């Protein structure tokens, strides 16, 4: 489904990683590991098309992601380091805007999605009254609406409590069981039954 060939990235005259090869099949999770500064976020940004400082090939269903950027983005949901939440808009307005951006976000109940991330009762307040963690959860609420085949998630569990983490893990499992793919980074020990989790450690790569 998702194939990366010969990927190298250099930033500020430092090689972050080179000669990276991997694939993500439908029903698989790829967890990218590594210390801070090992290039996890850079790698995810490259995979999303948010960074062009790389060499190599990234293809999605046999098509180059750069050449077919719009078609690829249609299929992709990215939760990044920044929440992408507008502080002056309410949680509901933010989600509605994201729905216009992403046609594959279901037009289903926003209240429901917000309840799932524990923001019940916060639909109508501007997001600047929410904490940074709550703002991130507004962004994560998209996962409950998403029918994108590919998820790319940068540290999705940081702003969540224990219960929230478990729920998101279940959500990811449901997503891959339905034939989706997921690439994520996390510090969190991540072990799920009955799901293929591949691991890619960027530290070992650079040591080798």
């Amino acid at each position, binding site marked *: 489904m998702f194939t990366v060939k010969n990927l190298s990235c250099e930033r500020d005259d430092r090689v972050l990683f080179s000669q990276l090869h991997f694939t993500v099949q439908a029903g698989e999770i790829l967890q990218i590991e590594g210390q801070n500064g090992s290039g996890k976020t850079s790698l995810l940004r490259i995979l*999303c*098309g*948010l*960074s*062009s*400082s790389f060499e190599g090939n990234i293809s999605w269903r046999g098509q180059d992601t750069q050449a077919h950027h*719009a*078609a690829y*983005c*249609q299929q*992709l949901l*990215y939760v*990044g*380091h*920044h*929440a*992408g*939440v*507008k*502080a*002056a*808009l309410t949680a509901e*307005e933010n989600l509605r*805007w*994201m729905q*216009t*951006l*992403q*046609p594959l976000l279901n037009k289903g109940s926003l209240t429901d999605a917000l309840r799932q991330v524990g923001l019940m009762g916060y639909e109508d307040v*501007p997001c600047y009254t929410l904490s940074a963690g709550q703002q991130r959860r507004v962004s994560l609420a998209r996962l409950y609406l998403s029918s994108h085949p590919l998820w790319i998630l940068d540290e999705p569990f940081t702003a969540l409590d224990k219960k929230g983490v478990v729920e998101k893990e279940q959500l990811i499992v449901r997503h891959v069981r339905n034939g989706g793919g997921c690439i994520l980074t996390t510090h969190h020990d991540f072990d799920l039954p009955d799901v293929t989790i591949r691991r890619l450690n960027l530290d070992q790569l650079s040591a080798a």
Partner: protein
Amino acid sequence: MNFFTAIVRRDLVLALRNRNEVVNPLAFFMIVIALFPLAVSPETAVLSKIAPGIIWVAALLATLLSLDGLFKSDFDDGSLEQILVSPQSLALLAIGKVLSHWLMSGFLLALLSPLLAIMLFLPSQAVGALVGSLLLGTPTLSLIGAIGAALTVGLRKGGVLISLLVLPLYIPVLIFGAGAVQAGVMGMPIAGYLALLGAMMVFSLMFAPFAIAAALKLSIRN
């Protein structure tokens, strides 16, 4: 088109919720104009002679001032990233954002300008030319300025740089805009000037969105 109306609506809502960002450039516009009688002379003859130039220069600087933040908050909170990883067109986004920016800056400046024309003793037969030239000229200023804003959005010290990049490109609009008002003062026809301003607006509307989109892309990928 759905996407386009959504951007315009979103940016207008945001502007209405942060009213300071709308009011500040307008206040700046008025203060700059109020400085001239104090610095040059409060005499009617002097002021009415330089009024077209002053109002146009002040409008240009006020637009420039408000442009600095056009993409800043979207860049900082990650909204721009999300737009880049969506299938929507960045050029369309640029047009939508510039349109709502113009409604909250250039358009309001044009509405406010008759008041300032009175304060600077601009002959009343030129007020129509003033409002018309501002209505047709400021969209071009917003479009060109947005290129500069998109190029500098990822930089820490974009403020002065954007003026350096954009002001030289503003000169034709300034010349024809102020020229239209001068012609209005002298009772000459102004249709030619307005047509030129309109042509520049159409021309920049055709090309600027692509330059803005390319600039935004590189600023995000930087």
